[in-house]
């Protein structure tokens, strides 16, 4: 065990882990219809490979990655494609997105799965296997993992490969259960990642409120040289920047990536899917999701991608009385769903139904008294109260100068604010306004360039015409004079 490097701020939040982490991972039922979004990841939307009426097998690729930063999408079960059209998805905007709808045939028949013996593969081929299996970061961001597993372009070796099992958000326990029950599989995936990245050291960060997971992972890591590092239970220790700092003492630069400080970080569930993809030939068609809060039977479910949230809730025995919000993700950073008819995606780690018991009563907002409680908990060492003043006054340049974009929207400041100001909402607003202004500026610049090019072209054409005219000038004059005579 190496020494830890605590980060500034953070919060001790309510935990609510025991509601869902006392039972084994259940296998969710196969729903009659699955709606599989083609955009479940950061990057370009996958290109559909199927049409309505096509018969698909479980694990068959139905969406092809479009570009380097994109991910493949696979059929979660066998059946018939009934539609390829925009459907409601889990997105804060509430807008629909392109989905492949599959009517299950109930047979759940696999394609021919082809495990690979990875030490015999060239790293680029191995990365292709992972890429074609649709592996993305399952911690929530859903960034295509094959991209992060590509060390090319970096001169020196990676210092540290970190596996993130912190799971710092309250209520969520899917990683906890996965580590307890399938530690060896996670470590097998981690070995593949280490094979590709060649790090000097491998660390697994787990919050110390999960002793069973720590024990299971430690047992699985025997004779691998990997270090299982219990970390203090303090939100947001599972945020990449904070976890890297905690374990290595290195700070990822503002606007930088973990690789900039020689670190790469993956979620434990991602390592598990890498293992399934490489050693079993199974693409990412399911994930483990925590369903908890005000439902009758909370727990963790291994569920097929595309299963409607409502079907999952029904398997938990339905909602209890007084559910007010359905949150996708944790209560700190998750977003409230409009409805439960959207489908499970690769990024969906928790479905949390909350009522008045969990939610603080909505209190009226008072003016900021500049007490600095927000500053004391900010893990990015920002001055949230000043960002708030600037965002409120629409002084976006000042907000940016105060490092608005270092804000990770962890929500600590909003939680502790004695004036109950929805601070994070102001930062999101300011960020969106800045992005919109930037797009506007880009568009204006493009328009200006187009206009200039057009003026130059017109000028050039005019000059060419005049040059031609000048060449022809004597004859023209003659013609003109003769024309006049005719008139």
């Amino acid at each position: 065990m190496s020494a830890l490097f605590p980060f500034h701020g953070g919060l001790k939040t309510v935990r609510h882990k025991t509601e869902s982490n006392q039972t084994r991972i259940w296998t969710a039922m196969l729903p009659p219809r699955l709606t599989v979004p083609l955009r479940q990841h950061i990057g370009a939307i996958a290109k559909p490979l199927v049409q309505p009426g096509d018969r698909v097998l479980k694990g068959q690729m139905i969406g092809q990655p479009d570009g380097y930063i994109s991910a493949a999408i696979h059929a979660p079960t066998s059946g018939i494609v009934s539609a390829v059209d925009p459907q409601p998805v889990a997105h804060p905007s509430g807008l629909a997105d392109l989905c492949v709808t599959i009517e299950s045939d109930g047979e759940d028949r696999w394609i021919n799965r082809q495990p690979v013996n990875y030490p015999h593969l060239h790293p680029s081929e191995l990365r292709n296997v992972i890429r074609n299996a649709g592996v993305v970061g399952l911690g929530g961001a859903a960034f295509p993992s094959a991209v992060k597993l590509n060390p090319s372009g970096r001169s020196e070796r990676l210092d540290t490969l970190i596996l993130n099992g912190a799971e710092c958000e309250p209520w969520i326990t899917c990683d906890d259960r996965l580590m307890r029950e399938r530690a060896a599989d996670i470590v097998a995936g981690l070995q593949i990642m280490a094979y590709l990245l060649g790090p000097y050291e491998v660390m697994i960060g787990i919050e110390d409120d999960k002793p069973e997971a720590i024990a299971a992972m430690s047992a699985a890591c025997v004779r691998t040289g990997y270090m299982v590092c219990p970390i203090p239970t303090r939100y947001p220790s599972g945020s990449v920047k904070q976890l890297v700092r905690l374990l290595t003492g290195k700070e990822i630069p503002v606007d930088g990536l973990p690789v900039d400080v020689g670190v790469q970080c993956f979620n434990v569930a991602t390592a598990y899917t890498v293992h399934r993809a490489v050693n079993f030939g199974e693409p990412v068609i399911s994930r483990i999701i925590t369903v908890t809060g005000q439902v009758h039977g909370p727990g963790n479910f291994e569920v097929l991608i595309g299963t409607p949230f409502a079907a999952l809730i029904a398997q938990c025995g339905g909602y209890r009385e007084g559910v007010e919000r359905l949150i996708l993700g944790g209560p700190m950073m998750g977003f409230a769903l409009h409805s439960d008819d959207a489908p499970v995606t690769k990024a969906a780690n928790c479905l949390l139904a909350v009522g008045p018991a969990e939610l603080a009563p909505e209190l009226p907002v008072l003016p900021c008294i500049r007490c600095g409680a927000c500053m004391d908990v900010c893990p990015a060492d920002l001055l949230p109260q000043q960002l708030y003043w600037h965002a409120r006054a629409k002084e976006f340049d000042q907000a940016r100068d105060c490092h608005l974009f270092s804000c990770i929207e962890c929500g600590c400041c909003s939680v502790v604010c004695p004036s109950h100001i929805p601070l994070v909402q102001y930062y999101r607003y300011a960020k969106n306004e800045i992005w919109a202004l930037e797009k506007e500026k880009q568009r204006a610049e493009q328009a200006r360039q187009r206009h200039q090019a057009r003026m130059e072209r017109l000028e050039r054409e005019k000059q060419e015409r005049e040059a031609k005219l000048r060449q022809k000038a004597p004859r023209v004059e003659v013609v003109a004079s003769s024309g006049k005579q005719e008139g």
Partner: protein
Amino acid sequence: MRFKTVTSPHLHQQTGVNQVMRRVLYAMVPGITALVWFFGWGILINLALATVMALGAEAAMLAARSKPLALHLGDYSAVVTAWLLAVALPPLAPWWMTVIGILAAIVVAKHLYGGLGYNPFNPAMIGYVVLLISFPREMSAWLIPHGIGQPHALSLLDTLQIIFGGAGSLPIDALTGATPLDVLRTQLGLGQTVAEIRNSPVFGIVAGRGWEWATAGFLTGGLWLIYTRTAAWQIPAGLLGGLAVMATAFYLIDPQHYAPPWFHLWSGAAIFGAFFIATDPVTASTTPRGRLIYGAGIGILIYLIRGFGGYPDGVAFSVLLMNIAAPTIDLYTRPRVFGERQP
């Protein structure tokens, strides 16, 4: 099923502005108890009058500004302002002084600048300074503490009569006198040494007799505010540090004519100001380093005003002067952001 959509985070701690303000009130209780013990009923009457006036003025201004009354009256900020001002007033101050002070604090310094959170100056100190400049004689006539000379035995009725009806037949001049800092200042001016002055009966173990116990009470309450993180530790640390450094430097140069640092720290409103006045977050600096600088600035100014200015104590003026500087201090003391390169 459809649900309400609210943005994250979905958790909230049950803290509130009213809780912060109530803690400040609780923390003042030990100091106020000592003041009442040594100076009698006047302290309590001033507190009650100031509280009623402050709530009335706050309600009137909120109504004029069409703000929800119950919500803002319930934040206790007006009560805090009232108590801070009342504690600073002489125990037998006529009622209209308290009224004028509160009106200046709540109406002018607070609401005309936009109300809670928007006032650039500490409202209680504005009220205090208005009174100090307008009525210097009344403001310097403090009751002689219980236990010096003849024990004053002003009954509640006598006190009420003095405050609301004037002294009348009561021997008010025999009951009041200069504050210890005032005595020090006057006697130094007359060419006496600090050691000689310290023999005066107005002085006790460390500082003014009676006063020093109130200071101990405010220190206790103030440390509790720091412990509960209601107030930022940097401000009192900076203030007392700044004052101590100045006082020590001058004491080392000439102990005959400059009072020792412990006397300065324990006298007047230094402790009270450090923990209760300067820590008002609205008007103070908000960055960690900024708070130290802000506090140190106040401490240095207190010493300069006490030693070389026209007033025996300088907490109110020093706080107001540093209030002006707070935004600039904040601008130059931004902490290093996570991942930002060392400058």
